[in-house]
């Protein structure tokens, strides 16, 4: 029986269903951890809300779009300056966030007029920006503001603007994941098919589920350029709003993050017959495999092989230098969801690293099926792990490095364990061939850091002093 009731969970025994310890010979069809289920209140889970899944993860990446958050200031404040997704423009998406700054009176009497004014203010203050996403939040959803009609009114009054509405308050669903879904489906319903792209290549793709963390998108774009493949829309790394309205014209959907954006790929397949190709873009083997699959689809295999050979020649030596030094190191991954299955085998195959524990904040069971299939025996696979579980699993698995967020990083540093930012990266990008060398370098630097060795030393420990020795 691969499900484990941890010591700290004895008083919340339902957590046993979420903690899976892979055992050789077990069939994951019999035992998968429960996922995408409500969090136990007070358990100190890592989860965020669905509003942030929509705004912070996906919508807020668009480089030419006003982010208008209809609610109190906190929702805007907290989803601004909390991600590392640059763009090739002026980084408008990093610099600004807008809020209707809702107050008590608007809760009592309705906030529609407030939103209307705020939207107009935003367009007036940023006359060069003509696109906007309006998000609802917990209180505006609860009081029932009619956001769509306000959006319609502003759209009618301003001929040159286009506005998308995301109605996904923070309490919807059990995690960020619900927000990904609402935004994806809403985008296909409301926006795809409205813009006709200029086609410059017979090979056209959408790249779905990459958000240009520290320039991942730029890294991948080099490859598409060399292959002569035109990206119609990058959903949503470094993307323009209107690029993503033209997604229906691509011949292939290349899906990286199947959790946050697989929904839109499925809808594009249903509605426009665009095939979906799932790839991994982290890791050498995986990136090469992704390029091969895409090139095979278009019948340009030789271009793909040339690119792979070129990249291997450039980067493989560096990767192997790290591999020699990292083989056998233990790693834990505590991130959102998909990175677990993207990374576990990639670090094992390319770097000889063993992933010993993984936790997903918002993965679903289908994600765990993939994670566990790719992962090792003896490894913990945890859904929605909480803080006490972390301590216990750390004590049992003793990883050398943990890939997680900065806050958990601050926690594990007290335990003398280095962390690497598994969300925003330390010194990325981490995608592609060069990116994986970056990851290997950061991993290597984390493990050879002398400070944490010094941290373990207790200078009060009994010792023979030089004076004593001289006297003897």
């Amino acid at each position: 029986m691969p499900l484990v009731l941890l010591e700290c969970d004895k008083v919340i025994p339902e957590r046993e269903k979420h903690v899976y310890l892979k055992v050789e010979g077990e069939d994951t069809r019999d035992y998968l951890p429960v996922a995408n289920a409500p969090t136990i209140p007070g358990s100190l889970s890592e989860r965020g809300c669905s509003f942030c899944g929509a705004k912070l993860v996906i919508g807020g990446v668009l480089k030419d779009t006003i982010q208008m958050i209809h609610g109190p200031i906190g929702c805007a404040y907290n989803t601004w300056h909390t991600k590392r997704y640059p763009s090739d423009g002026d980084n408008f998406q990093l610099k600004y966030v807008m809020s209707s700054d809702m107050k008590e009176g608007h809760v009592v009497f309705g906030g529609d007029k407030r939103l209307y004014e705020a939207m107009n203010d935003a367009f007036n203050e940023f006359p060069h920006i003509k696109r906007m996403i309006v998000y609802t939040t917990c209180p505006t959803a609860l009081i029932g503001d009619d956001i769509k009609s306000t959006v319609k009114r502003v759209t009618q009054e301003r001929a040159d603007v286009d506005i998308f509405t995301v109605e996904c308050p923070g309490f919807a669903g059990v995690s960020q994941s619900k927000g990904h879904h609402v935004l994806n489906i809403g985008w296909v319903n409301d926006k795809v098919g409205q813009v006709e792209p200029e086609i410059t290549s017979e090979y056209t793709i959408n790249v779905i589920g990459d958000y240009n963390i520290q320039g991942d998108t730029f890294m991948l774009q080099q490859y598409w350029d060399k292959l002569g493949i035109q990206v119609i829309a990058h959903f949503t790394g470094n993307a323009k709003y209107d690029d993503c309205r033209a997604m229906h014209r691509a011949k292939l959907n290349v899906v990286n993050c199947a959790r946050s954006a697989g929904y839109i790929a499925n809808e594009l397949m249903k509605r426009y017959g665009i095939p979906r190709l799932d790839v991994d873009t982290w890791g050498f083997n995986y990136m090469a495999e992704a390029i091969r699959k895409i090139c095979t689809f278009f019948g340009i295999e030789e271009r793909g092989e040339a690119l792979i050979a070129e990249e291997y020649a450039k980067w493989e030596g560096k990767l192997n230098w790290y591999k020699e030094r990292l083989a056998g190191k233990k790693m834990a991954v505590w991130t959102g969801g998909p990175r677990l299955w993207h990374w576990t085998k990639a670090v094992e195959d390319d770097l000889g690293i063993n992933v010993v524990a993984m936790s997903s904040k918002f993965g679903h069971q289908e994600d765990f099926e993939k994670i566990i299939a790719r992962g090792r025996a003896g490894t913990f696979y945890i859904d929605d792990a909480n803080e006490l579980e972390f301590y216990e699993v750390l004590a049992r698995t003793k990883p050398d490095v943990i890939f997680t967020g900065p806050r958990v990083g601050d926690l594990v540093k007290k335990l003398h364990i280095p962390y690497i930012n598994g969300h925003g990266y330390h010194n990325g990008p981490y995608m592609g061939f060069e990116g994986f060398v970056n990851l290997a370098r950061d991993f290597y630097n984390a493990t050879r850091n002398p400070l944490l060795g010094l941290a373990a030393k207790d200078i009060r420990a009994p010792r023979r002093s030089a004076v004593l020795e001289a006297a003897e």
Partner: protein
Amino acid sequence: MGCEISTRKRTGLINPIFDCQPAGAQFAGIGIKDSIPLVHGGQGCVMFVRLLLAQHYKENFDLASTSLHEDSAVFGGRKRLEEGVMTLARRYPNLRVIPVITTCSTEVIGDDIEGSINLCNKALKEEFPDRKIYLVPVHTPSFKSSQVGGYATCLQSVIKSMCNAKVAPSGKLNVFPGWVNPGDLDLLKHYVSAIGIDATYFFDTSDFDSPIMPDKSIHTHGRTTVEDIQRASGAFGSLSLSRYESFSASTYLQSEFEVPAHNINTPYGIANTDAMLETLSDISGRPIPDSLVVERGKAIDALQDLAHMWLADKTVALYGHPDLVIGLAEFCIEVEMKPKLLLLGDDNGKYKRDPRLKALQEKVDWDMEVVCNADLWELEKRVKDPAYKLDLILGHSKGRYVSIEHGIPMVRVGFPSFDRAGLYRHPTMGYQGAVHLAENIVNTFFTHMEIKKDREWMMNVW
């Protein structure tokens, strides 16, 4: 010439200065020892605040959520609140305080927090007869006030619910520093003990700068204990340093338990620090020791090296917590700088009547604006105009792009400061804080001059 106090007219807010009330309440709630605040609302209301605190302090703090989902939005969230309390109690055997912090969603739904707390108290007594866990209701709907008011509300709620009897005189002083850095708190402790006063701090956040220890023990938590809070009514007085974050708590102790409240100006700059030390001396009957006169003298000496050579006439924009902004405006004038724009980031109607602002209005003989309910766009819009000359921005990291985009030197101060290393460790208050800030400002000017090759040769001989 003169100082105008206005309010933001634009409805749409662009780049907020503050987070919402529950954020401030959470920060206050972690200042208590053996406390895990439980935020009754969506999970994002906790997850992001934990991240924000981690960004500023580079530390992890324990905060819990009731993880409100749709069913609670329809049927109320009482069950989840009660489950949250019991789960915390069961899994954290040393837990003694749970501030129950509401959010916009649970206030709109109208959950009966006090009723739930009564139920929880019964359940806790039954399951843990030998433990006492204090459940403190903290009402902080996000659509009122801001992180500033949230801090004040949580502080006052904790005092109100846990300090409910007059205790025997403790001979101690209550000190309410407001929302400050560990560096400030350590300096305040130094001053108070130099005068020979025994004090309790509400809340003691010195360990928010916490060590990595050889035994891997974790010390990142508040130090103010349940007993400290209960004995606040026996103090010989309260020194309260933040009009908008702590005066309400000290005033409550005065009206309820006759603990004299000494609500004074936040000690930014020399004169305000003098006033604080004089107050400490007056209320304790103990003299200010020579050592503090020396510390003060060193500070004035250091500032004198900088003031009319480098700082004089420099125009400054300030934003952030109101006591910080107003206090630093006073400090700026002490070192001959000219505060030009003060941004106060929420709709608190009391700002306009603040006696310190009134005093500034009488003092300044240059153009100065105070904008209430402001956002950072109020600053950016002004500096976009090339005719608007601004030499320095003093504010927290959320305004960093105004400086970056417009090439205006900026010194980070206040919460959150995550784009400069280690600021939480240094004081801004007191004599040492004044020097640290002034030197930081001048060094920032120097670097700016060197990068811009703007009279960088000035420093060849300084």
